[in-house]
């Protein structure tokens, strides 16, 4: 059995500068595993619907996955969770690299950052101890300089750092937390939460011991999974191109998405191709902890002003976002914007979506140079893209609005600006245009943290797999036609549970069945968990953990007032595709609503998207369910019993 040594949780009170350590109970592990699972459970209880995301009442959770750092393939990922300043509800983001593993070696699995430090600090986690160190001298530094500076200051090149950049320190709402050159806890503005707590970085280093339940078995399991991954069909593509593999796919199949989702295909030059990047700019490949796939690029580019610059990445989301969505095919512009975001600590996916949105507003005449601080936001213009990013980080011109989030910006701009922003539950959608893939549309709509490709995108839909294959995989034959609606709810739920499971274990989705049928799935996860920790699950029980995490997050959303009306794709998806072999494809409202009904039924939710008491009982979430039900009852108008409990007098008195 796993010893308690590997189960430490640190509750860090930043105002009092005290650290309290506790242990994660076996029951908690069985119910939520770790990482995103435990984070979402703790977050639900730590904040409520009135918590100000940037106030001291918000709590920032760090969680390494249950298998993160172990000698297993691709055991890399860890999550930061808090109430999101960008969307106002569930905030959660995962990243790979070496940070999660190093925090575990330093002696902790979970960190809970409470309250707010009175002046900028960074946390130094080593050998089971947590020190508070002054960080004021980091103020002028970019993220690369911050990380290198802390490594030098602590005198150990093996220190791993997660830090916020200038954007996070200035509380830009789409700021991210960064590690190395391009590993980002990007979405939902976790960097702004960290900035609001005056914690500018977390550094970790340790050589602690992690006891393993059955080392020989784990070695065997790891060897088998290693073979499975490296011998899979897609391995060559993923290890050569990384996520850029999707750049060529989406283009060839006609759903690259362009000009802020006004078109599904662009006629930009062929420069925007993964091979061009590899030939001209890539100088090396790097990998996350224990991962054979080495999907990450290291690039070097000569910028327009002649300076030579080195950076990590890019990934597909950024290239498509500034490429087809903002209308440029110039790699130098894309890489400059990408590197700028990474150095400043801006979430690339939000930054690209905001830029494309402003460009459409400019095109439609909703905003002019008077609003933009003098920038002409023409499609594909280098100065426009860089101008928006710089203004956002520096909080001036149009950037002052963007820094407060798109909802604030849309209110300030007025003139119907919000209609042009494509989002789900407040979070921008990615650059690709998936309206022709029904399970993906459903996944986009139901995703818990808002539009997201890493929570609920049924990627396999793009491969038109035969029904026999999907039946074996999912248990239900999924139509191989991407445009079909039938039984797609099963694919969506399967993906959501798998993703929740992967995030809780610290497994990378790029090595999982999320990407390709030959990679790791729940069966493989089960074997690794049992060998490493001694906790026995059947595959069904493990999948149920994913289900539990998903319902836990749903309860958080229900408490925030999110319901069926928010489980919808962006309005643009109801309009037909304009170009390509499948022109005319659109989301049919009636068919989508029926699909959503079936999804709710499969999840065990009512028609308003609220988990039913029976569902919660099966998952052991009655207590949380009751809390949400009480809150909803207390707020529903016209309910006498609830009104009696309210502080203010009813209207008729």
């Amino acid at each position, binding site marked *: 059995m796993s010893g308690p040594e590997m189960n430490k949780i640190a509750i860090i009170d930043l105002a009092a500068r005290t650290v309290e350590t506790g242990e994660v109970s076996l029951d908690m592990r069985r119910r939520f595993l770790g990482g995103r699972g435990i984070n979402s459970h703790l977050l639900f209880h730590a904040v409520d619907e009135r918590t100000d995301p940037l106030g001291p009442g918000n709590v920032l959770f760090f969680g390494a996955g249950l298998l993160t750092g172990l000698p297993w393939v691709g055991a890399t990922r860890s999550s930061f969770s808090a109430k999101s300043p960008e969307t106002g509800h569930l905030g959660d983001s995962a990243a790979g690299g*070496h940070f999660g593993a190093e925090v575990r070696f330093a002696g902790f699995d979970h960190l809970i950052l409470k309250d707010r430090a009175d002046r900028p600090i960074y946390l130094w986690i080593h050998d089971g101890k947590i020190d508070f160190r002054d960080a004021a001298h980091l103020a002028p530094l970019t993220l690369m300089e911050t*990380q290198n500076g802390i*490594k030098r200051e602590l005198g150990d090149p093996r220190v791993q750092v997660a830090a916020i950049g200038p954007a996070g320190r200035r509380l830009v709402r789409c700021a991210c937390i960064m590690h190395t050159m391009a590993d980002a806890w990007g979405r939902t503005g976790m960097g702004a939460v960290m900035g609001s707590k005056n914690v500018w970085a977390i550094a970790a280093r340790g*050589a602690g*011991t992690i*006891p393993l339940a059955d*080392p020989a078995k784990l070695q065997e399991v790891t060897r088998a999974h290693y073979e499975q991954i490296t011998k899979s069909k897609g391995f060559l593509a993923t290890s050569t191109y990384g996520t850029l593999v999707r750049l060529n796919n989406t283009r060839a199949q006609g759903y690259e998405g362009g000009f802020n989702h006004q078109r599904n295909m662009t006629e930009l030059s062929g420069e925007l191709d993964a091979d061009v990047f590899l030939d001209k700019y890539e100088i*090396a490949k790097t990998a996350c902890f*224990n*991962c054979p796939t080495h999907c990450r690029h290291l690039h070097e580019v000569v910028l327009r002003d002649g300076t030579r610059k080195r950076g990590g990445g890019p990934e597909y989301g950024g290239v498509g976002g500034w490429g087809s969505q903002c209308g440029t095919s110039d790699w130098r512009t894309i890489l400059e914007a990408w590197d700028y975001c990474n150095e400043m600590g801006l979430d690339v996916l939000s930054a690209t979506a905001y830029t494309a949105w402003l460009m459409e507003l400019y095109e439609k005449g909703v905003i002019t140079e008077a609003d933009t601080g003098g920038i002409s936001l023409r499609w594909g213009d280098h100065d426009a893209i860089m101008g928006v990013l710089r203004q956002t980080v520096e909080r001036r011109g149009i950037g002052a609005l963007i820094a407060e989030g798109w909802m604030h910006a849309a209110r300030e701009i007025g003139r119907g600006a919000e209609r042009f922003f494509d989002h789900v539950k407040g979070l921008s959608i990615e650059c690709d245009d998936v309206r022709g893939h029904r399970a993906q549309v459903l996944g986009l709509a139901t995703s818990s943290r808002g539009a997201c490709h890493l929570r609920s995108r049924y990627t396999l839909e793009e491969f038109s797999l035969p029904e026999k294959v999907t039946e074996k995989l999912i248990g239900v034959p999924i139509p191989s036609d991407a445009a079909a609606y039938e039984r797609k709810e099963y694919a969506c739920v399967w993906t959501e549970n798998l993703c929740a499971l992967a995030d809780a274990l610290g497994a990378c989705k790029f090595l999982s069945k999320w990407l390709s049928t030959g990679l790791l799935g729940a069966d493989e996860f089960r074997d690794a968990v049992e060998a490493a920790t001694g906790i026995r699950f059947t595959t069904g029980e493990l999948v149920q953990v994913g289900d539990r995490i998903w319902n836990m997050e749903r309860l958080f959303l229900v408490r925030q007032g999110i319901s069926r009306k928010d489980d919808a794709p962006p309005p643009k998806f109801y309009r037909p595709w304009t170009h390509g072999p499948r022109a005319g494809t659109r989301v049919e409202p009636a068919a989508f609503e029926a699909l959503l009904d079936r999804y709710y039924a499969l999840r065990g939710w009512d028609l308003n998207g609220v988990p039913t008491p029976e569902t919660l009982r099966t998952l052991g979430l009655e207590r949380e369910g009751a809390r949400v039900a009480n809150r909803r009852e207390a707020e529903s108008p016209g309910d006498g019993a609830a009104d009696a409990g309210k502080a203010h007098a009813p209207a008729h008195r």
Partner: protein
Amino acid sequence: MLRLTVNKTLCTGCRFCESVCAFARCGDYSLGNARIRILQAAIDGRRFSVNVCRQCAVCPPLGACPTSALTRDRATGVLRLDPERCPAGCRLCVEACHLGAFHDGGSGLILCDLCGGDPECVKACYTEALFLSVYRLAGRRPAERAGSVSE
């Protein structure tokens, strides 16, 4: 004679070699037991340092060790560090080694011993940045794969 050879241009910094090395030797898993260590001094560096014993034909620590804890096996040519004879705090070998091959383990210094001829790290290295090559100690002939070695 066998030696571990490193092609740094292929190293991706995944540290799987560290993991399997630490793991192959004891039930409890701690990277402090790894005899190979990868590090990156600056995060924007292009290359990773690979600190592991390469079984050099000329080994300065061999001459520096005052207690003969460090020896070379006559039959296999593999260097061996005897923890029994290695006094704590001496660390002359650490200073003498140009490759940073001596590491602090849980109880004293540790050194790669090629896992008895079939190193786990070489099996785990997917990009083949680590591989075994054969050299002759006496004849001073170039190693068989010297052409592809960066160092």
